[in-house]
């Protein structure tokens, strides 16, 4: 119990990490680890066929481990260094040194807001959590608003106001003009599509139709681009199975069978 308390409260986990890394890198553990990873990969990939007990096993294991992992991250990366130590600095292993955490009583405010959320567990006292949510949503909206204006809205707005190069005297300049017109017409027509105060009929309807075509072309390009990233993930998994698990030699032999070698 004391050991557990020390692990939970001490910042310096290096000795434990060393023990774990020795355990995981020595003996037959790397081989066993590769087999477990390959087995779980196959369990998850079996979903391509249909829902089955192997997938269910992998899914539940993945869910359980990830939930526990995230909880650990919260404790060691957030709660302990940013809440417990500023309130009780003596618990910090670096206490008394320049790296040690100093007392910060302001932390009590977010602490109380956190406790308000936990009040939902007490029947009839759930309304306390609304104070926290109001603070949370209001605060984040306030932070997000200037960021969105400055980072997204205004730069795009100004970037759209570009001069249209009317003078065409070469293929390059014609392409430049076409590009410029696509940007101008595309931006305006998409804005019209997202205009909700008028029915999309007549002229507005035709412009908004151009807007949705523009969107679909953009989505098509984005689709292809994103699919490439997904394929590279799949390739990564396949490489793990073929080279780390099955082994390069066996893969080469199998490949030679197909090539008649």
């Amino acid at each position: 119990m004391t050991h557990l308390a020390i692990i939970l409260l001490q910042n310096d986990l290096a000795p434990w990490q060393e023990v774990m890394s020795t355990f995981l890198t020595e003996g037959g553990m790397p081989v066993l680890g590769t087999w477990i990873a390959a087995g779980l990969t196959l369990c998850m990939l079996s979903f391509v066929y249909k829902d089955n007990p192997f997938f269910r096993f992998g899914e539940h294991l993945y869910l359980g481990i990830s939930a526990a992992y995230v909880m650990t991250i919260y404790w060691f990366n957030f709660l302990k260094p940013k809440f417990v130590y500023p309130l009780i600095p003596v618990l910090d292993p670096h206490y008394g040194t320049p790296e040690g955490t100093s007392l910060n009583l302001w932390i009590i405010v977010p602490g109380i807001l956190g406790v308000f959320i936990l009040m939902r567990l007490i029947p009839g006292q759930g309304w306390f959590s609304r104070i926290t949510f109001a603070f949370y949503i209001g605060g984040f909206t306030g932070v997000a608003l200037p960021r969105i204006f400055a980072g997204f809205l205004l730069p795009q707005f100004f970037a759209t106001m570009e001069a249209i190069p009317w003078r065409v005297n070469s293929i390059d300049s014609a392409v430049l003009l076409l590009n410029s017109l696509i940007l101008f017409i595309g931006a305006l027509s998409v804005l019209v599509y997202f205009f909700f105060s008028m029915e999309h009929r007549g002229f507005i309807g035709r412009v908004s139709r151009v807007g949705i075509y523009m969107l679909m072309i953009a989505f098509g390009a984005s689709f292809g681009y994103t699919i490439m990233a997904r394929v590279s993930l799949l390739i990564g998994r396949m490489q793990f199975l073929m080279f780390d698990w099955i082994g390069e030699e066996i893969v080469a032999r199998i490949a030679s069978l197909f090539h008649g070698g």
Partner: protein
Amino acid sequence: MKNFIRLATSVVVVLTLLLCSAAFSQEADVELPDEPFAAEGDELEALEGADMVIGLEPVMEEAAPAVEVPLPTHVTVSDLPNDDGTGLVVEFEKAPGETEALTYTVSVGAGPDGPWQEIGGFPATKKWKEEARHYYPAFFLFQKGRAGMSKNFHMFVIQELGDNVPLETGVEYFVRLTASVGDVSRNYAEILSATPEEQWFDTGRTNVLIFAVLFGATILYFIARARRDPNLFIRKISGLDAVDEAIGRATEMGRPILYLNGIDTLAALPTLAALNILGRVARRVANYESSLIVPCKDPIVLTVAQEIVKAGYTDAGRPDAYNPDSIFFLTEDQFSYAAGVCGIMMRDKPAANFLMGYYAAESLILAETGADTGAIQIAGTDAVHQLPFFVTTCDYTLIGEELYAASAYLSREPLILGSLKGQDMAKVFMMVMIIVGTLLVTFGIAFIKDFFLALG
């Protein structure tokens, strides 16, 4: 054959020896001149004398032409404007006779006598004040002859002392500027000092303030109007009619409805919009006496979703039908969440899937699995890269702002309705500005664009 091998081996060995000896002799040549300098005092004098005695002429190297290192005439160090009090800025007008070979180095010390810590350097062809528009909005707005000032002023920002140690607010720092051409360096005569101070108002964000006030006022006006008249017109959003259709179909089939709020936190706007629509869906589900499953990725979203669904059931007059266990936490990890939801889709076979809110790489996994189960799927997100996946795999997709409009359309709440109308007016303003601004810029009149750019 053997002879040939021997011959070849011999040639290789000889060549190697030759190369080695050449290399050693070069090293010796380099080291030799160091020897006299290594000697000290009397030994050195003796050696010099020896040279004279044996009658060798001392080798006089041809004098290299004197390297001129230009220095700026007036350098200033001051607090970096529009920052949080962790920056200083070194500014000076281009030195006369600056060449590409000239580099400037900035060092910072705790006192006027150092010790000096080199912060960074830059060639004389870089670090222009005009490139740091954000820090000097007024400079660009009010200075006459802006074009003439182009690349005449250098500026160098100091924000850390190396190793990511930031400057401290209120502490005086001393700065030394050094100009170098090759190995020849000259320090600026004066050691300058300044103290970083924080500013409450970032003048570089004035345009944000102007737009925020304008848009905010418009939205407030329309919220007030929506309170007086909740029937303000909003066009029909295709896909929303399908909400009732999907819930009805699930009821007829006796299968549940799956509702996802996305993977973002409660602070994200798409999550808030998704929760708004969830309220409406919950009311319908309660009316139809169907069942609802809401797996959540974020614990805070979970608690809010529980509140919203409970309120929806209460509004529909069926508080007894509310089952808090049907709104549950899965995990915070993105892909294990996706695996969990896919499992639910395959096992519980919901007849309707709602995928609202923000999604990332798991969008296609979820939507494709849902399509496999034969469920009617309605998606809504503003994640641009995920929209193509939803468009291809779902029956209806709310694109971008339609997600926000949908919650206004469904709820008719004055707050959301007024916000949507206000945003529409902002769009009209932006469309007009884009048309006018583009035409003016095309004809060489750029004051509208420059005005706002100068402020931001």
